[in-house]
C-alpha cells in the first residue's frame, strides 16, 4: 500500500504544479466592441447610374433605432452589386468586408426579395460562393423588399437558402425596394 500512497502524492502534486499559472492582463482603458458592424452598404451600378442601399445603426444593439436608406431601381436592368460592412464608430471607419472575404470559406451572404429581383453571387472562396460581389437583374415595375443575410459558419456548399445553410446570423437587414 505504501507504493499506492506515494503514487497518490505524486498524482496530486503533478496536478497542482501543472495547473497553477494564468495570465492576467490589467488594462483599464475603455473597452469597445471590435466586432461591431454599424453599417451595411449595398452599392448597385448599371454602368452609368448607381444606387446605394444603406442600413445604419451607430449605437449598436441598444440606443436609437437604425436608419434605413433605400433606393429606386429601374425595371428590366442589370446591376453590378457590391456589399460593404463598416464599423463607423472607428475613425477612419473599419471595413469588416475585408475580414469576411479573408474568411470566405466560413461566410456566405444570402439574398431574398419580394420585388421580382434576381440576384446571382459572382465571387467565390475558391470553390463556393461568398456573395460580396453580385449581379442584380430587375424585372417589371413592382415594389417589395430585399433581405440580405450574412451567415457565419454555414454549411458550404448548400441549397442556396439561408435556412438550408444553417450557421449563425451575423447580419440580417431588410430594405424596402421600388422598381419602376
Amino acid at each position, binding site marked *: *500500500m505504501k507504493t*499506492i*500512497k506515494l503514487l*497518490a*502524492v505524486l*498524482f*496530486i*502534486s503533478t*496536478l*497542482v504544479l501543472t*495547473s497553477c499559472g*494564468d495570465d*492576467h*492582463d*490589467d*488594462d483599464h*482603458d*475603455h*473597452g*469597445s*466592441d*471590435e*466586432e461591431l*458592424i454599424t*453599417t*451595411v452598404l449595398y452599392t448597385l451600378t448599371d454602368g452609368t447610374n448607381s444606387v446605394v442601399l444603406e*442600413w445604419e445603426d*451607430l*449605437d*449598436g*444593439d*441598444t*440606443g*436609437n*433605432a*437604425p436608419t434605413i436608406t433605400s433606393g429606386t431601381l429601374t425595371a428590366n436592368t442589370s446591376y453590378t452589386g457590391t456589399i460593404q460592412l463598416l464599423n463607423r*464608430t472607428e475613425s477612419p471607419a473599419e471595413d*469588416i468586408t475585408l*475580414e*469576411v472575404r*479573408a*474568411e470566405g470559406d466560413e461566410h456566405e451572404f444570402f439574398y*431574398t426579395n*419580394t420585388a421580382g429581383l434576381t440576384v446571382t453571387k459572382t465571387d467565390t472562396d475558391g470553390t463556393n460562393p461568398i456573395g460580396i460581389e453580385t449581379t442584380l437583374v430587375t424585372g417589371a415595375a413592382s415594389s*417589395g*423588399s430585399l*433581405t440580405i*443575410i450574412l*451567415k*457565419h*459558419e454555414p454549411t458550404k456548399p448548400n441549397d442556396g437558402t439561408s*435556412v438550408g445553410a*444553417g*450557421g*449563425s*446570423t*451575423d447580419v*440580417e*437587414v*431588410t430594405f424596402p425596394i421600388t422598381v419602376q
Partner: protein
Amino acid sequence: MVIYQANAQDCNYSFSGKITDFHDNSLIVGASIQIINLNKFTTSNLEGEFVFNNLCEGKLTLEIKHVACETKRLVINLTKNTFKEISLEHHLEELKEVVVKTNTKTEVTSIEKSLKKEVISNFTDKSLGDALNTLSGVSSLNTGNSIVKPMIHGLHSSRLLIINNSVRMFDQEWGDEHAPNIDISSSDRIDVIKGANSLRYGSDAVGGLILIRPKKYAIKDSLFGSTTTSINSNGFGGNVTSEIIKTFNSGYYTKLQANYKRFGDFKAPDYYLTNTGLENINASFRTGFNSYEKGFDAYYSFVNNKIGILRSSHIGNVNDLVEAINNREPRIVEDFSYDINFPRQNIFHHLAKVEAFKRFKNLGKLSLQLDAQLNRRKEFDLRRGDLRDRPVIDLQLFTASIQPNLEINKFDNLKINTGFLVRYQNNDAIVNTGANTLIPDYNKYEVGTYAILDVDINETSEFSAGIRYDYSRIKARKWYVESDWTALNYDVLFPEFDTGIVDGLELLTRPEFTFNNFSTNLGYSKRFGKDYSFLFNYGLAQRMPNPSELFSGGLHHSAARIEIGFLTINKETANKFILSLEKNNENFGFSISPYYKQIDGFIQLIPTGIRTTIRGAFPVWEYNQVDARIFGVDIDINKKLASHFDYKGSLSLLQGDDLTNDNPLIHMPSANFSNSIMYSNNDFHQLKIGVNQKTVLQQNRFPDYNFTTLDPVTQQQVFVDISSTPPSYTLFGFSSSAVFYPFKKGSMEVGFNVDNLFNVSYRENLNRLRYFADDLGRNLNLKIKINY
C-alpha cells in the same frame, strides 16, 4: 447459509448500556445507537440508557451518534448478556471548525437535508448541482449537462448562499450559466438548509443555504487516503480523485487532495452533443492544529474548469432560434471528439482561508477567520478573424473578508453567538476582449453584525433566534451609450453619476449605491414519542440587487437575447415560513415539509419585446420587480420492505406566482417524484444493488411570453414559442456496489451504475439549452475506490 448459522446459535442475549458525556459524566439523551452489521437501531432514553434484546452470540459493530458529539464506533464480542457504559466526546464537536460548531445548534432547529460522503462519492464525475438534485425540494437550472446551478424551492444564483469550508463563495454567481466552482470530491458532507437562514453567513439567503463541510480528523498518529477512478460510457471519460491525510498525536493534521476530470462530447439517445466536452483540474491543501483550548485551520483550493457549450446553441438572432425550435434536432451534429472548441467557458477559482480560535474560561470561544478568493471567468464565443481566440467575456472578481466570532457558552441552557464581518470585493472587467462588457468594474464594501441565541427549553425542545444587520456600498464605473442613458431617464434620476466624460457615443458614469439590510430568524424544534420531531422556522431575508440586475445592458451572445438591468432596481425582501414533521426510524420514517415564501420586490428576468439590430431581431429580456409567492411541500419516505430490502421515495410540489401581474413565475420547477428500492447485504461484500426511478412532470403553470417576429426571407410573421414547456419524462437508473479486501490493509470498493437505463429522449424545462437538443442518453459507469 449465514441464516442457518444464526438460527443454530443461542439468540437470547441482550446488550444494554448507558451513554454519558466524557467530560462531566452527564447523561446523554437521544443518542442514536446502531448495530451496523444487524441494522438495528435504538436511542438512549432520559436516563441515557438503551437496550437491544434477542441478540445472537457474535461480533457487534456499533455506531453511536449524538447531534453535539463525535460519532463513535466500537466492536463488541457478545458472549453473554452485556452492559457497557459508553462515553461520548460531547465537546469534540466544538473542536471542529467554526462552521460545524455553530451549526450543531442550528441543525437542531433548522430544516435541512444532507448528503454524506458515500453519496457525494457517487457524483465525483458530475457536479455539485447534480448531487444536490437528488434531494427533495432541490432542483437545478442547467445550461447543457455540465453547467448545473443548484436551485432550492425554485430559487437560485444570488439567492443561495454557498458556504465552502466556512467561506462564502463569490464566483460571479449572478449569471444563469455561471455554475458554482466547487470540486465536490473534496467535501465530506453537504448540507442543504431550506429553513432558518443561518445568519452567521449573511442576510440574503432568500432561497437557502448550502454548506459544504470538511471532515474533522481524530487526534492520533495516522496516514491514510483513498483513490477513486471512474469511467463512463457517455462522454467516454471519467475522473481520478485522490486524497491523502496525515494526522498526529499532537493534534496537527494535513490533507492533500486532487481531482482530474475529462470528458469528450456527450451523447443524447439519437446523436452526439457536439462540443460538450469538459476538463477540470482541482486540488486542495489543508493543514491545522486542534486541541480543546485552541486551534487553527488553513485551507487553500483551486478549481480550473474548461467547459464546452453545445455548438448548436450558438445562434445569431431570433430567426435562428425559431429554426432551432422548429428543427428539433441540433443543427450541428458531428462525430465524437474530445475537442473543446467554441463556445466554451474557462474558469479559475482560488480560495484561501485561515481561521483560529481560543477558548476562555467562564466565557466561551473566540474565533477569527480571514479569507480571500479570486475568480476569473472567460467565456469564448465564435468570433471573426483576430478576435477568434479572445474571450468575449473576461471578468475577474476578488473578494476578501475578516470575520471574528464570539461564542458565549458559559450558561447551561443558553448559547450566544455574536460577531461581525468586514468584506471588500473588486470586479475587474478585463478590457482586452474587444467586446462591450456586460458587467462593469466595481468596488463593493460590506460591514455586517449579528447575534444568535440558542436556548434549550427542556430535554426535548429547543428555540433559536437571531438578528443581523448589513451595510453594503457598491461603487461602479460603467460606460453607457448616451442615448440609452437619456432614454432610461437616468439623466434625470441619477445626474450625480454622470462624469461628463464622453468617448464617441458613450458616456462614463460612476453609479454608487448603499443598502441597509436587516434579517431575522426564528427556529423551534420539539421531539416527541420515540422518534418523532416537529420543527418550525421563520426567516426574514433581504437581498441587494446583484451587478447583473443593476448594470446588464447588451447582447448576451450565448443566449441570443438582449439583457437589460436597471439602476432603479431595489433590494428584495423575503418572509419565509417552513414546517417539518419528521419520523426518524429505519423501519418506517418520513419527513413532510410544507413551506411558504412571500418575496416583495422579487427581481426577475423576463422577455419584454423585440429589438431590431443589424444582426436581425432579438428578444429583449429585462429585469423587473414584482411581489412573488412561492409555496409547496417536500415529502420523503423510507421503509424497510424486508430484511435486506429498503424503499425510499420523495415528492416535491411547488407553485410560484407573480402576484403583481397575476401570472405564474418563470422558470419554476415542476412537480417531481422519485422511488428507489435497494437490496443490501452486509455479510456478502457489503453488496448493494438498487434500482431507482425519477419522474418530472410537465410544467403546466408558466407565464406565456411567446411572441411573433417577421421572417425577413418569407416576409411572414412567425410565432416564437419560447415559453411552452417540454413534456413529462421518467428516467430509470441502476446502481450496485461491493467492497473487497484484496490487500493486507485497506479496502477496494467497486461500483457499477447505469443512468437513463432505457435511453429515453427527453428535454428538461430548467435546461436553458432545451430549445436546441435532447438531454443525455444512457450512461454506464464503473467506479473503483481504493482506501488505504
